[in-house]
């Protein structure tokens, strides 16, 4: 592990990974920092990506593996940035590495430590749809394939009880309860911030019933439900563990009014979800409550047509967010106004809420630490929306992906490649001075 890198990349989602790989192939040394115990960001939560319904794992796994295997990229998971000083060409950065309690070198990913662990808790990465042990990997196929111990819930680490079950099960002596958080000092010539996004919490829309009614799901929850490495191995089974939905309503534009922008990706995401449902449950009725259909680009409208061809019912609503979702016996009922003014009611088993893309929760802190501005929406502000949308207010610090604003994976990669171009020029200039 060096302490001097050409570039620091913050966030190992699709944008951060692409940027790191491109830079490394261009001969630059990269420190890739990721706050979660695994790399891949949000895109690995998808089973398939629009518009071609390409297998997300097939697409991303080779990149993840190459990144982990390359000597010129130092990946630091469970790591956040604490302090930044200096200028472009030479930033001095303090990283905070949280303890994994499992050695990345010694662990070979056999998984023998999970079973003996006596603690079970909700798996946040799986949108709380399944459980994990206190020593866990977030999902099957997670990379690096090395578990982490949740210190808060581990009996031993939280001081509740002396328990060494996992350590005893490990044949490689990979578990070390005494591991401590570490501060790591590094230098970097340039920084790319690619901290990604979150989706708007939908509990605030009481009329939509999320958190109240079991049949209401967020789009992320649905992605995990459909995923073959997810909590139900891809079976569309409702929270009761038995029922498969016979009819599903997908609600667009949740949060659009409050956030004040169209996220530009939820329509495509909703078509994808509708197609997922039709593939798994061909007889299910699928309704999409939408306002504007936002399908920019040469491929997107075709995907919309595909959803239509699958027999999805598209119901125009000037304000889908204001739909009335209620319980009706064992299922749900949605009341809405048709275009001719008449009120209509449909019964569904499941409601999926496509909510707005918002900045990742770490954004305000990162903005402060790096001394860069956020825009009014909370995303990182870039210097000029027409000419440069990867340069922040601080020279040498660039942003790529959804950290800058809602966008799809393709645009995130384009921004990542653009940031790499800027960084290459920035490093070249600073090398000479």
């Amino acid at each position, binding site marked *: 592990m060096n302490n001097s890198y050409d570039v620091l990349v913050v966030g190992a989602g699709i944008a951060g990974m692409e940027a790191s790989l491109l830079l490394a192939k*261009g001969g630059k040394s990269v420190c890739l920092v990721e706050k979660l115990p695994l790399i891949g960001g949000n895109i690995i939560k998808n089973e398939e990506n629009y518009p071609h319904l*390409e297998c997300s794992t097939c697409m991303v796994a080779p990149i993840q593996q190459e990144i982990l295997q390359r000597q010129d990229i130092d990946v630091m998971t469970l790591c956040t940035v604490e302090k930044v000083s200096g200028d472009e060409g030479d930033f001095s950065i303090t990283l905070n590495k949280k303890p994994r309690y499992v050695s990345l*070198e010694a662990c070979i990913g*056999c998984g023998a430590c999970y079973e003996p662990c006596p603690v079970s808790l909700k798996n946040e990465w799986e949108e709380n749809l399944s459980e994990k042990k206190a020593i866990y990997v977030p999902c099957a196929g997670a990379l690096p394939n090395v578990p982490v111990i949740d210190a808060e819930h581990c009996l031993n680490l939280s001081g509740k009880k002396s328990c060494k079950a996992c350590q005893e099960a490990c044949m490689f002596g990979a578990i070390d309860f005494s591991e401590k958080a570490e501060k790591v000092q590094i230098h970097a010539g340039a920084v790319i911030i690619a901290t990604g996004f979150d989706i708007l919490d939908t509990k605030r829309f009481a009329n939509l019933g999320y958190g109240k009614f079991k049949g209401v799901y967020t789009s992320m929850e649905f992605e995990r439900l459909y995923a073959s490495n997810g909590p139900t191995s891809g079976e569309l089974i409702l929270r009761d563990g038995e029922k498969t939905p016979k009819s599903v309503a997908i609600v667009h534009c949740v949060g659009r009014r409050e956030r004040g*922008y169209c996220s530009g990706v939820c329509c495509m995401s909703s078509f994808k979800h509708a197609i997922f449902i039709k593939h798994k449950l061909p007889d299910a009725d699928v309704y999409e409550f939408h306002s504007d259909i936002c399908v920019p*680009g040469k491929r997107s409208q075709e995907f919309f047509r595909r959803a239509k061809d699958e027999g999805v019912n598209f119901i125009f609503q000037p304000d889908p967010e204001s739909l009335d979702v209620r319980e009706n016996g064992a299922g749900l009922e949605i009341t809405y106004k048709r275009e001719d003014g008449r009120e209509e009611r449909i019964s569904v088993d499941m409601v999926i809420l496509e909510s707005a893309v918002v900045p990742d929760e770490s954004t305000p802190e990162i903005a402060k630490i790096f001394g860069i501005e956020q825009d009014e929406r909370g995303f990182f502000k870039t210097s000029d929306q027409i000419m440069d949308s990867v340069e922040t207010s601080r020279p040498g610090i660039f942003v790529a992906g959804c950290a800058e604003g*809602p966008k799809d994976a393709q645009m995130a*990669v384009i921004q990542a490649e653009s940031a790499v*171009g800027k960084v290459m*020029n920035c490093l070249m200039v600073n090398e000479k001075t």
Partner: protein
Amino acid sequence: MSMKIGVFICECGPNIAEHIDIDSVIKKIVATEEFKDIELVIKRHKLLCSNEGQEFLEKEIISNELTHLVIAACSPRDHESTFINVCKKTPLNPYLFKMVNIREQCAWIIPDKEEATNKAARYIRAAIRRVLYQSELLEREIESRPDVLIIGGGIAGLEAALSLASKERKVYLVEKKESLGGKASLYNLLLPRQSGGVDEIQKKIQDVENSENIQVFTETEVESVVGFFGNFEIVLKSLKADESRTELKAGGIVVATGFDLVNPQALSGYKYTKDDDVYTSLEIEKMIYSDGKVYLKSGEQPRSVTLVNCVGRDEKGYCSRICCGAMIKIAKAIRDLSPDIKINVLYRDLCLPHKEDQRFFDEVKESGVDFIRVKGIKLKERRIEYTGMDGSKSEITSDMVILAPAMVPAEGTEELAEILGIPLDETGFFQEAHYHLNPVSTTTEGIYIVGAANGPQGISESILQAQAACGKILTRLIPGEKIVPEVKVSEILESFCTGCRTCLEVCCYGAIYFDEEKGVSVVNDVICRGCGNCAASCPSGAIQAKHFTSRQLYTEMIEAIR
């Protein structure tokens, strides 16, 4: 040369050792009849991927003077590269090494220990037989030129030129028109989130023209391109009377040829002539830029204007992304010019995917512009019949109608695609190599597609794409550095080739060319990606995929199922 094969079986802790009787495997292999004449060094190790394990391997390879290596352990996807790096520290060529997966695909999936042991022995025997047929493959370096050809002098081309040009990298910027700037230099209306406008573009044009490292060719087009990544040979043709030719060499090519707008008169449902006051959005933007106002053919100011979105959207099958924003800004511009003009905007869906655009729309709506959502429209001269969302039919006749036509690839796109040997997709725009992972590259390495040539998009996106192509070029075509192409490529045996050219047809990367003189096909190993498709397609068996030759695969297979 006497062969000495090292066979190392990893215990992987309990993962393999507990499910497979490794000693028994070793006994079976040593007892194999066919291996009596081969010198085998066969050992087991606790954990080969560990630092200690790797050092052990290195020592074993060197001290035993091993000529071939087989490692039975976890999946090659986990640690093949680890062991290849170990080989690179020794005289052993890393391609004389075969890794056997006896963990994920043996120990972990076969519960019966005896069966798992037999299977492991089979796989390892197969690998030993196979590795003997493997060949040394050597990485090589080829010279490459860092210079770049940019086709198209619009905003994307200008941006790419300025970002790429340096003392060590010449940029050749080719533009078929008389001046640089493209469509973006024709108007100055901007969305509030955009800044710069025509002045900014003019500045970029000046920077380009003043740059020592950028050579500009206006009124010029590309006549031919041959070669490959790092080594393209280009011929330019002047469109002036002399038709002079210029020969250039470049390592990379950026296609930034932009767009045109579909002609609404060619669409059904839009009936008007050039005498009617029906304009495209681009015509109005030019009008506002050059004359500072909107006016009818008669010269008078219109009292009412209707803007129509999504013109050609269904026929083309895609949404052009920029038109909603453009129409809103035109509506605002007209409103600013005169508060009295009645302005209607007929739209189907509002496409405002940028985080700042919704606010702009709200403001313009507040300023008294009527946005009417429709299901479909028909235009006859200046009369528009439209179907409302409730199914009812209505009519509007305005003094002026402004249409937002779909973006289409620029004229000459098909011809250029032929010249460059890159494909177009079903929409007619250039096809990107991979929608997500390689959105500005093409399947021809070294040729990039940016801006509206890549697909309908606006100025911000075009600039981003141009910069993305720069990111690719700056990291791959580095001045002074050589290119190291893929080693596990296909090879055509001249004597077997009948010249049928089947392989040329099946190669997705254009990595095979036909040698007219010799009458045989030849693989360009710089471009070849090693998929083996050509090897499988050759009727004469003239093509071998290195490291996956027929002999190697047969041997592996036969031994594995014996």
